[in-house]
């Protein structure tokens, strides 16, 4: 069994040591993507299936880059092209893939718990690339890596997650990951988009974005799904921006410079204004870069490699 066990299904339940190991492994792996020949042989001979039951561009591409840069063979299965539309169950789909002798499955699925459901039924390693409104652990990890670097550590640091926490798997992974690392976590958003039991997850709640900005060292601004308005959770995107939008004017009143994160894709002018997204404290593109490194680290560790070898792997070329 690897340091992570068979699967990475979420950050809930991971220890500080486990999270630290992933981040420590990811850091040197980042260099691979900076080289002219962006490839190491570490996962040569391994087959990874990216099983996506939900549209995704950046997460799927990020995983695919991570897999390819480590020399794994990859196959992408997207819902429209899969037999799922013919009525085959998730288990049957996965077992059929497994019968073709694969090593890992990266799964994105609209239902909470789907990654775990799969992991309990197949022998391949399973990486959760987002399940419903439950968790998106590699997004959480890339946020942690980015924050750790920018804030010089996570212990005692104050991170506020802003927006639609109720429907956000990114929020849940952030909460567990940040708390494991000793950070203080708060959420800020309309009460209609916060789970009623949110405080029981061990986070603070801010009703006013101004108060959150005054408190925080960093803001992780969630994407507001545009259909939330039609479903009656908020009256309008316009008011959302006026009450909760992260704007330059609001940030300028902060007692310190805040790091600005966003998991993307952004709704400019809704949850985040362009001059913040493109401003000096935005680390949004670094998150994307770190995403590839973190996913390489997870693949590397789940494949059973020892953390200490990561530096060596970095040095090798095809």
């Amino acid at each position, binding site marked *: 069994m690897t340091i992570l066990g068979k699967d990475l299904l979420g950050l809930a339940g991971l220890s500080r040591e486990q999270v630290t190991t992933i981040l420590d492994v990811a850091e040197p792996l980042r260099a691979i993507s900076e080289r002219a020949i962006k490839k190491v042989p570490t996962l040569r001979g391994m087959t990874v299936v990216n099983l996506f039951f939900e549209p995704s561009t950046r997460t799927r591409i990020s995983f695919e880059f991570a897999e390819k840069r480590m020399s794994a063979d990859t196959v992408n299965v997207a819902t429209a092209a899969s037999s799922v539309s013919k009525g085959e169950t*998730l*288990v049957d789909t996965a077992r059929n893939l497994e019968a073709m002798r694969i090593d890992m499955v990266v799964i994105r699925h609209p*239902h*909470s718990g789907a990654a775990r459901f799969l992991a309990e039924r197949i022998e391949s390693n399973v990486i959760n690339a987002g399940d*419903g409104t439950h968790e998106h652990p590699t997004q959480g990890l890339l946020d942690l890596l980015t924050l750790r670097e920018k804030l010089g550590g996570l212990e005692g640091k104050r991170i506020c997650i802003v927006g639609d926490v109720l429907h956000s798997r990114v929020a849940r992974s952030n909460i567990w990951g940040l708390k494991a690392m000793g950070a203080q976590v708060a959420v800020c958003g309309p009460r209609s988009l916060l789970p*009623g039991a949110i405080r*029981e997850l061990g986070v603070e709640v801010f009703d006013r974005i101004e108060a959150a900005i005054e408190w925080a060292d960093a803001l992780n601004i969630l994407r507001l799904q545009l259909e939330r308005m039609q479903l009656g959770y908020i009256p309008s995107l316009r008011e959302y921006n006026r009450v909760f939008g992260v704007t330059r004017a609001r940030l300028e009143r902060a007692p310190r410079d805040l790091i600005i994160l966003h998991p993307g894709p952004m709704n400019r002018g809704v949850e985040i204004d362009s001059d913040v997204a493109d401003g000096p404290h935005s680390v949004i593109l670094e998150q994307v870069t770190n995403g590839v490194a973190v996913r390489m680290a997870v693949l590397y560790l789940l494949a059973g490699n020892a953390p200490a070898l990561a530096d060596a792997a970095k040095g090798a070329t095809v």
Partner: protein
Amino acid sequence: MTAPLLITGGRLVDPSQGLDAVGDLLLVDGKVAAIGGQIAGPDGAQRVDAKGLVVAPGFIDVHVHLREPGREEVETVATGAHAAVAGGFTAVCAMPNTKPVTDNQATVGFVKRQGEAAGFARVYPYGAITVGQMGETLAEFGEMVAAGAVAVSDDGKPVENSHIMRTALEYAQTFGIPVVEHCEVMALAHGGAMHEGTVSARLGLKGIPGEAEEIDVIRCILLAKLTKGHIHLCHLSTKGSVDLVRWGKDQGVNVTAEVCSHHISLTHEAVEGYNTNAKMNPPLRTAEDVAALQQGVKDGTIDLLVTDHAPHHYDEKEREFPDAPNGIVGLETALGVNMTWLVERGVLTIPQLVDRMSTRPAKVFHLPGGSLAKGRLADVTLFDPARRWTVDAAQFKSKGRNTPYGGQTLTGQAVCTIVGGRVVHQLDR
């Protein structure tokens, strides 16, 4: 006619006559011929040694889903009635959410005949409140009652239109049957997969607040108050609902209520790990709710215990949590669960448990049975209150295997079930 049956040396527990004493019971021609003391059986009487066993009026479950007609691959009236007697139930009331819906005399008659043909537990059909359970037009209560329906319900969903519910409560009085409501405000519950609380927040599953049930509970109580009709509230799951029913009873409203064995034993923590066998509607709630429901059963606010036996096919539950159907089987675990969580933990005495599982259901639904008084139906359950056994779903008589109690050890098991003076189930010991 079957031979006379003499049950000797058991602990006779019959709440209908305040009886709790060791003695004999004689059943002749489908009726209780004598009860209490030592009885010298007639010649040719079959004898059953009930030493160490409780001898009770047969259990009655007023809330089961037998899936026939329409979903015979999941359960039939026969397999469901077989599961019933294996669990100690001598009668069950079959909910009408079949395919097609049991909303007419022909289907009611069909379910009743299937029950009679099976020859296990007595099967009393429900009729639907509204045609097709669509909530719009009242079904023909009169004809359904004539065909054997004992109550009406749209269980599986509520009757959302308060005018229809009011009319149903009025019209049902003509035929002396209860109107049985599945309490749920759909707009609040929509898309929910479990109780709304800490666990749902953690698992990222859409929650169903307790208020989705409670708002309908108070609406029904008020409509029963208005109409003086008899409202029976299905599978209550929250402390708030218990409080509201208590208030209704204090007001003199003709309200009765039931609770499922799973709601007095399990909490929403059972969903952890996305266990689809802990998915049901109403959902498992908090420990505080469980305690309040137990208290409600104890003080009589909640009249009776049911199973909401809801078999599903293995493939249907072997799915991603939000896609899995609601419901679990219960007929073959209910006695053990109730004994373990209510009697063993001192909430109820054995006579009180027999009351909530037999005498009260008979009384509330105006059914024969529920009593071992001389001349009454020879429907009897013999159970071993101390027997410890481990739940193995593969052994169920039900076609359903969807139980959250698999592998758990329970105390108390039916040993012999008698319907109309005939032994229809005997435990291999």
